[in-house]
């Protein structure tokens, strides 16, 4: 297990470095002068030179590369707009994004897992069709439409919930619902498929033959086996929620990392864009790594197959 953990961590390292290099190269992808993009065509030559110097764009690429990484590592990479270290801005917003993503995940699990179980146990009946319809609709509804529609109904018409901002549970409800719907759709399908597969396993027939009651067979044997893929999809989707949060946070003015990225883009604060993108990408990689390790811990077959 320790060897597998080490191997998995080592495999993540090149991906993390590659992602960082790609984020560094963003600023060099612009056809033309990035300083002109940031300041506009009307900026004076002195202002341009000052910004170019501040961003170290007057240095050779290799030096810029080193400065970018040392800036990241020491927390000295500075936002142009806020005149604050990028790391400080990013960490200040990380909590709000995690709060939103966790709430979306909790909502999705609470709704989707029971729906998936009912769909599997009532295969081919109306509950199953309802679950299929919900899943297709859930993955197709754009969150940038669902959010405004929820605001329209629950905030503007019924006046039950606040339109935007971060506060208590009431503030969290609509953004979490907007963000969690697509995950709920996928999770309900995965729960249904995993449970159907688990229900067809021979050891369940054996359990029934031993005289175990049907609820006990389902709860104790089938669900336990179905749990591993469900856990995986929850972990992987949690990573996906982080990118979905960019739009959700914009709609609901939720002060998270996604909102910070959009603000940085609007103010053309490229170091902050780089920092925010990297923070989201790194969190995504780490969440996927943790999911992978949890998966291995829960299902020993994975590491045995890996060894073979």
């Amino acid at each position: 297990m320790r060897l597998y953990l080490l191997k998995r961590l080592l495999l993540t390292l090149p991906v993390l470095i590659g992602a960082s290099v790609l984020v560094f190269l963003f600023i060099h992808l612009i056809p033309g002068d990035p300083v002109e993009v940031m300041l506009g065509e009307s900026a004076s030559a002195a202002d341009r030179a000052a910004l170019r110097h501040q961003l170290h764009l007057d240095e050779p690429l290799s030096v810029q590369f080193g400065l970018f990484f040392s800036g990241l590592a020491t927390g000295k990479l500075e936002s142009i707009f806020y005149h604050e270290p990028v790391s400080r801005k990013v960490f200040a917003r990380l909590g709000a994004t995690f709060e939103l993503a966790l709430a979306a995940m909790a909502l999705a699990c609470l709704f989707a897992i029971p729906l998936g179980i009912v769909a599997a146990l009532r295969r081919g009946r109306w509950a199953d069709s309802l679950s299929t319809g919900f899943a297709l609709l859930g993955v197709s509804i754009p969150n940038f439409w669902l959010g405004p529609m929820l605001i329209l109904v629950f905030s503007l018409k019924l006046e039950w919930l606040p339109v935007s901002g971060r506060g208590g549970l009431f503030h969290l409800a609509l953004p979490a619902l907007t963000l969690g719907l697509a995950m709920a759709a996928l999770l309900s399908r995965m729960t249904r498929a995993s449970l159907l597969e688990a229900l067809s396993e021979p050891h369940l027939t054996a359990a029934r033959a031993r005289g175990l009651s049907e609820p006990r067979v389902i709860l104790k044997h089938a669900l336990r086996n179905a749990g591993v893929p469900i856990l995986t999809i929850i972990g992987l989707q949690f990573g996906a929620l982080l990118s979905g949060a960019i739009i959700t946070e914009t709609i609901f003015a939720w002060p998270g990392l996604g909102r910070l990225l959009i603000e940085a883009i609007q103010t053309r604060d490229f170091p902050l864009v780089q920092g925010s993108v990297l923070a989201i990408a790194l969190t995504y990689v780490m969440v996927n790594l943790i999911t992978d390790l949890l998966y291995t811990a829960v299902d020993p077959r994975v590491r045995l197959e890996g060894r073979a």
Partner: protein
Amino acid sequence: MSRAGLILGALVALLLVATALLAPALAPYSPKQQALCDGLHGPSAQHWLGQDKHGRDVLSRLIYGARVSAIVGLATVTISALIGILVGSLSGYFGGALDQLFMRVVDVLQAFPGILLAIALAAVLGPSLENVILALSILGWVGYARLVRGQVLVEREKDYVQAARALGASPGRIVLRHLLVNVSAPVIVQATFGMAAAILAEASLSFLGLGAQNLPSWGAMLNEGQSFLRTAPYLSIFPGLAVLVTVLGFNFLGDGLRDLYLTPRSRA
């Protein structure tokens, strides 16, 4: 269900392409024609879906918006599939260092969640239709490359490839004439889902102000509509429905094609 879904999805796809092609004939007004005195007028006999804050006809803008969606969807899928097929087939057929290099690039690109990289790229490249296509294609080829590589790895060991090799066929001929024909079905299915994803991503970028400028796009219409949610909710409802129906249609089509092309083979 899947046969009905396939037909429904095909109809939606046809409707999108026909609307995009025939937009000038179908739209009752020019999408840019302003009537500032009639700004934010709701649906009426003259303007079925109402007018936006500049008095522009929402229906006409929705019809022209289909053009942006169709162009971005088709261009992104074509460019992504071509690059992905090239990289995937080279990687799968030749293996070795080339395969390792390509797959590490794929790993890095897949380390970025969903639309994040597209947002970042569109932000640095600047908002335009071409840049949206470029940003989505830079990400899009990865899925095709992984798919084609996997398929080629399986197919290259089969007898017909060995026979072609024994007959002296060049690697290029084997890949082009034999392997690609046999991996085309999953690529077509992936391309159909890719259309849905590209249309959704374009609308997301436009919603964030990073899409095509001065062109009526469904995402940009939704963005504008959000400011008038209380007074003119129709500005948000209709463009969102257009995105929803289109994406749902392509997902139905993808599901149907997958069942039609791929499931019988896997059953066999």
